[in-house]
């Protein structure tokens, strides 16, 4: 198995773990963490393809990863802000009980 294949398989594994967590946990904060894990798996793919790609001097993978990390940070800040606002209305962070549009 070539190094690139093992990195891709590891990335697929991390993505699936994040997906499983995002789909099956009740707490909103953990669902957000699962989404962060999925974004990180995509970043690992970018870096692996940059490293073993034909033209590593072009820096494309690194640039894409840097921008992706910035977007993930913005997403985490806004997501946790929304969770705090919802908690202030409903007094819990259980996603199974968030079933009304009016707080």
């Amino acid at each position: 198995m070539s190094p690139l294949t093992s990195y891709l398989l590891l990335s697929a594994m991390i993505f699936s773990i994040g997906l499983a967590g995002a789909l099956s946990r009740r707490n909103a904060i953990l669902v957000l963490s699962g989404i962060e894990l999925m974004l990180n798996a995509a970043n690992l793919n970018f870096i692996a393809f940059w490293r073993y790609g034909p033209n590593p001097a072009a820096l494309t993978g690194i640039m894409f990863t840097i921008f992706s990390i910035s977007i993930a940070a913005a997403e985490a800040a806004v997501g946790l802000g929304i969770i705090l606002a919802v908690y202030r209305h409903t007094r819990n962070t259980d996603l199974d009980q968030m079933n009304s549009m009016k707080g």
Partner: protein
Amino acid sequence: MTVTFLILAALTIIGASAAMGLRNLIHCVLALTLGFVGLAMLYLELGAQFVGFTQILVYVGAVAILSVFAIMMTRSAGPHAEPALSASWIIGLVVAGATFAVLAWAILSSGITAPATEAPDVSVKQIGDALMHSYAVPLEIMGLLLTAALIGAVIIAMPQEKTP
């Protein structure tokens, strides 16, 4: 596949699984931090030093602390009586398992091979040059996005005045 890769991969997978599987939320975030550290070391192993240290700064530093703050402010820590998994957790696990099966099948059957070349030497100066020249417009847009996210997060989380 080297021993270093195996150790780092095991660390990352254990951290990620524990983060998604444990019951206590604080333990979950600590395990998630372990997974992020493993990923940062994988970036270093791949020769992307700048991205590795950015990962440590942003994820291990900022996102983990932010999550711990959110857990404490929503009083979600500690043991709970209600189940940790949602009502439809079996469907979630099946979907995730199927996704991994399809991805692994696609990767293994693609026949992709890459020779193990020398790690490219990328300095921070080169990255800064690229950010200031060919990626200047995306950088500006990213700054705008981060400003908007900062203001938006503060406004969303601000307590609302009761209007009569």
